[in-house]
């Protein structure tokens, strides 16, 4: 994979979420949505290091992971529109998506709860000798939930093939990381579990791929879990409708200079810029086609509402 591929992968996520926001504003998305605008380099960089069969677990802010791992875009739109999508039949919506077909163990709406679950996917990989790894993404704030602590220690002691990616966007909803922890970097906690921890620039897909790649290799070799802390910034609110009055003036504007797509654009010569324009246009077309396809999906049949509780 090279730069144009990364750009395309990130642009797809960005465009997807921009259009999602517009659809939300237009009343086409009933539930709450949490965007990863600005954080796209993390799922894209990480996904580069993964194979089919590797598991990914994310949070409610997981659209990027779903797309980067190949979950069908039209299906995602349809799911979030409350339609009978092939993804989760309208039962999950934006914050609790999953797709076994793409080994996407799924999002989770309970902070940190995905980490123990991802540990279980890693257990399966280890016990069946499949060679798969289990990658799980959480936010900086989630590092203070007990579930994450328990899962990390357990993965460490069982040598499970788990990679924890902490997307540190320095906010837990509306609270700053300084009010949440007394450490400079959350990766410092790795030592307490006896596992490696690294901090990387989360706005650079290459840096992410390098660090996650190292952790994935380690995990595949049976050497156990790692933590990769990817530093990034949210370009938007915590959720759709968040006015962000808690963010200092200029913070978002400054972040817009550093975000992964802007960075590539800023460094691009005329030739590359022209290629990126083409990609943008292709991505825009892909996204519009996905929306159109999603709109053709019917709403779920209320008569099926009691299905799927039990086998």
């Amino acid at each position, binding site marked *: 994979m090279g730069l144009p591929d990364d750009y395309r992968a990130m642009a797809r996520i960005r465009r997807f979420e921009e259009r999602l926001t517009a659809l939300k504003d237009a009343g086409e998305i009933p539930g709450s949505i949490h965007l990863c605008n600005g954080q796209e380099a993390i799922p894209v960089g990480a996904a580069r290091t993964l194979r089919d069969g590797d598991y990914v677990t994310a949070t409610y802010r997981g659209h990027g992971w779903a797309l980067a791992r190949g979950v069908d875009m039209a299906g995602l739109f349809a799911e979030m529109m409350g339609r009978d999508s092939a993804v989760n039949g309208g039962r999950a919506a934006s914050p609790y998506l999953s797709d076994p077909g793409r080994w996407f163990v799924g999002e*989770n709406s*309970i902070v940190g709860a995905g980490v123990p679950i991802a540990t279980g996917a890693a257990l399966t990989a280890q016990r069946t000798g499949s060679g798969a790894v289990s990658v799980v993404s959480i936010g900086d704030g989630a590092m203070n939930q*007990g579930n994450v602590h328990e899962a990390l220690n357990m993965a460490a002691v069982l040598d499970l093939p788990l990679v924890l990616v902490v997307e540190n966007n320095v906010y*837990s909803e509306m*609270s700053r990381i300084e009010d949440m922890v007394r450490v400079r970097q959350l990766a410092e906690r790795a030592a307490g579990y006896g596992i490696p921890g690294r901090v990387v620039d989360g706005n650079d897909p290459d840096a992410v791929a390098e660090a996650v790649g190292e952790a994935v290799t380690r995990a595949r070799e049976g050497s156990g879990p790692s933590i990769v802390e990817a530093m990034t910034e949210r370009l938007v609110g915590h959720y759709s409708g968040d006015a962000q009055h*808690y963010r200092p003036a200029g913070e978002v504007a400054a972040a817009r200079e550093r975000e992964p797509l802007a960075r590539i654009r800023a460094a691009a010569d005329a030739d590359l810029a022209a290629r990126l324009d083409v990609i943008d246009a292709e991505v825009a077309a892909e996204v519009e086609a996905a929306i159109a396809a999603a709109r053709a999906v019917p709403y779920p*049949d209320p008569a099926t*509402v009691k299905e799927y509780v039990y086998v």
Partner: protein
Amino acid sequence: MSESLRYIQAVNAALTWALDSRSDTVYFGEDVALPGGPFGATKGLHKRFGSERIFDTPISETGFLGMALGAAMTGLRPIAEIMYADFTFVAMDQIVNQIANIRYSSAGRWKAPLVIRMQQGYSPGACAQHSQSIEAYLAHTPGLRVALPSTPDDAYQMLRTAVVSDDPVVVAEARMLYPTRGPVRTDAPVEPVGGARVVRDGRDATVVAWSRMVPAALAAADELAAEGIETEVIDLRWLNPLDFETVGASISRTGRLVVAHEANLTGGFGAEIAARAASECFTDLRAPVARVAAPDVPMPAAPALQKAVVPEAAHVVEAVRRTVNR
């Protein structure tokens, strides 16, 4: 004096009252201080009372509910906020095994005067992990008081009662009712814990409801009145202490009971009301007890599906009709 306030403003007013009038109160939870709470319940409080009295915690519900308990045992009067009732489950041990037990297990030598504020219920498009009505889990736990206000006035009065109570109280608010407006008696004396309320008289059937199902039951009663059925509606308000006397007295007049809640049916607190009626009001009952509740499914996110499971006024209407026509 009575002010017209929205439910969520009434919560804010009660919290202002608490921090203002009781120097031993402290308030904490996620995004409650500077941000003013995800729904604005604590708007302005940090500015007014400062970080000594209201502060943000890490995303550590077990940690901060335990902190509330330890603080309450040693002399503070903490109010801890769980952002969505669904998140209670990450901290359930501190509620069931710790907060609820300490007074009893110490033979009354400790007490735990603390409040856990939360809000619950479905909303359009929200997933199963942000939609639950969890009162049955709480009301089965001896040692807790459980309050479910359904009006702005009760959001104010019951929260103040909770703050003053020397027992631990969980106040589970109804998110869907936050925008509703109503008169709030801001200068009323603080009420004692407990007490159901007959919010509409009627001779044909008794509907016992709480939280969001109270306005639904009242709407149902209006509709039923148009067809000549007079429904008595009881807002149960507190599941603990449980005021079954008010319920029983009503059943003795109507002979018919419908219980309505948003939580799913099986093992919901409606079962407790029905069970008491089947035991204590047996000779008064003239028709089978009916329950209106969500069926036993996790909450789906799609509104098309939610419509098929969320109990509304129409379900109450139907249940009362069925009961009266027996």
